[in-house]
């Protein structure tokens, strides 16, 4: 079969059965391909569904609300349905809602970003959850980045590598996998009830503290990994110049590890921004029609508002929920994009 000559130096007999081995390899390749396709398709279906529901075709009437003429969406069809079946939908609209105009209606719009939630879906907005989420995540990042980095530096650069350190290491790794609702219960006990004087109860601050607890294990693990990836030769070079441990860490280890630490922090933040359960547990509201006045004010966040809309019976609120998901996903993708850019820009080979 082979076009190459048989090797001369043969003491044993070989039956290499190359075609059978290659066939087996092909099977594994195709199984892996199928799994990849499954993953891509699931993601595609999610996006298809969400986008189709956030950007819709609608039968829109007009009505007067608080003395102003406002659109009143009486029925919606998904983006995709409208693309393939536009004439049919137009006919249906004319038949069922003679007053209504059939047109494209994007639920992600300026009103959506600037209005507070409302009982009229067309007027309802995402403003308070958007601001609430950004405040919670901002404070969480400010707290968890220095604490997580500090803990990682101590564990990697100062801590002795004994059994205590191994126990701590295992515990932190396990904490990263603790269900988030448990952090919510912890936050309720400590930050809402216990330290209510400091946080003011069910406030942005209590939420941010809870989210800090939630993100710390992830940040510590990521920061330790990237500190460990700094070659020992760099530390030795600095120490051999008569540097102290801190000078070595501050001037050489940290700058090299920082991109990895930042990436880990951003990824932890993008997990935190999507968390619902712990914030519901500590008592974040589901309906907030004002901007939080500060860190010690009550608040809501994007996933809670989305959940709230999904639970309402009217179909148009489900469109709002999809619009909320689009905004949340956009913020998540932006954050992850930043993490990728940081990693790309600072990639280093030693």
């Amino acid at each position, binding site marked *: 079969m082979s076009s190459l000559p048989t090797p001369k130096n043969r003491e044993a007999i070989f039956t290499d059965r190359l075609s059978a081995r290659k066939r087996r390899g092909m099977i594994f390749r195709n199984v892996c391909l199928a799994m990849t396709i499954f993953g891509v398709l699931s993601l595609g279906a999610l996006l298809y569904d969400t986008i189709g529901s956030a950007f819709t075709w609608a039968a829109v009437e007009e009505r007067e609300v608080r003395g102003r003429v406002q659109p009143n969406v009486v029925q919606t069809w998904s983006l995709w349905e409208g693309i393939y079946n536009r004439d049919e939908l137009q006919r249906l609209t004319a038949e069922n809602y003679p007053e209504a105009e059939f047109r494209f209606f994007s639920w992600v719009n300026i009103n959506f970003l600037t209005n507070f939630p409302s009982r009229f879906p067309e007027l309802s907005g995402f403003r308070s959850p958007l601001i609430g989420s950004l405040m919670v995540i901002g404070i969480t990042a400010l707290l968890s980045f220095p604490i997580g980095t500090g803990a990682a530096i101590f564990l990697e650069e100062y801590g*002795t*590598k004994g059994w205590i350190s191994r126990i701590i290491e295992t515990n932190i790794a396990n904490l990263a996998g603790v269900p988030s609702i448990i952090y919510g219960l912890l936050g309720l006990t400590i930050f809402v009830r216990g330290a209510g004087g400091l946080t003011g109860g069910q406030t942005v601050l209590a939420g941010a503290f809870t989210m800090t607890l939630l993100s710390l294990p992830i940040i510590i693990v990521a920061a330790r990994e990237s500190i460990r990836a700094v*070659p*020992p*030769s*760099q*530390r*030795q*070079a*600095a*120490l*051999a*110049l*008569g*540097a*102290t441990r801190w*000078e070595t860490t501050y*001037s*050489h280890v940290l*700058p*090299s590890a920082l991109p990895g630490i930042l990436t880990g922090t951003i990824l932890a933040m993008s997990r935190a921004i999507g968390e619902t359960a712990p914030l519901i547990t500590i008592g974040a509201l589901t309906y907030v029609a004002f901007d939080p006045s500060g860190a010690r004010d009550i608040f809501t966040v994007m996933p809670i508002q989305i959940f709230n809309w999904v639970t309402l019976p009217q179909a148009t609120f489900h469109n709002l929920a999809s619009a909320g998901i689009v905004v949340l996903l956009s913020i998540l993708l932006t954050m992850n994009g930043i993490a990728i850019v940081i990693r790309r820009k600072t990639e*280093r080979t030693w």
Partner: protein
Amino acid sequence: MAQRSLRPEMRRAAKEAPVGDAIMSARDLSVHYGAFQAVRDVNLSFYENRITALIGPSGCGKSTVLRCMNRMNDLIPIARVSGEVLYHNHNIYGPNIDPVEVRRRIGMVFQKPNPFPKSIYDNVAWGAKINGYRGSMDDLVERSLTQAALWNEVKDKLKDSGLSLSGGQQQRLCIARAIAIQPDVILMDEPASALDPISTLKIEDLMQELTRNYTIVIVTHNMQQAARSSDFTAYFSVGEDRAGYLVEYGPTHEVFTNPKDPKTEDYITGRVG
């Protein structure tokens, strides 16, 4: 720089001057890594402004001994050092000695060039800065790079990353970095083993130049390198118990031309190792 005139043949005469006091010496130095004894009872002296080569087969503990000289072994948690290492008659393993102080006086150049991922200028200046250098930093950087025979190659690109240099240049940058803090002793752990022959030659020439101001201890696998560039040679071997020990120590020409121990002769003539 008149490096050619410093080739070993020419240098022999220059080094006829009497040997001064030992600047450093090891007394009954033993090193354990956990339960394993890596080095047993080494007694050895390094003389001022001379080059001492540590040679021997792999695993004989010569790098371990070198790292004991500026307490770099402290960084290995399981390493335990017993005996004394005297520096100007002070035991650097004594109770009141801070390893940071030791390393500021006894510098080190590593096997693999390890410049900081910073500019060439900052690579040289950083050590001086943290050690509180008061003079003109520009002058110090120029002087150190000149002494390391690198100035002419990098003077127009001091802001470039140290990692942009070639391997040989990086190693000379590491030497410049080490001498910028003006230590007494420079320990070199196989400084040329990762370099090509031409870069190796440059490093060797540089070592000769540096002996005007510095005492050098070099670990090398390359016996020609030891023979042509060192003043003293210490030959280490591995015992039955896998612990390294010092077999023979003396002026290089004696160790290489008239070794006292048959094991040394076997090694330098290439019969073992």
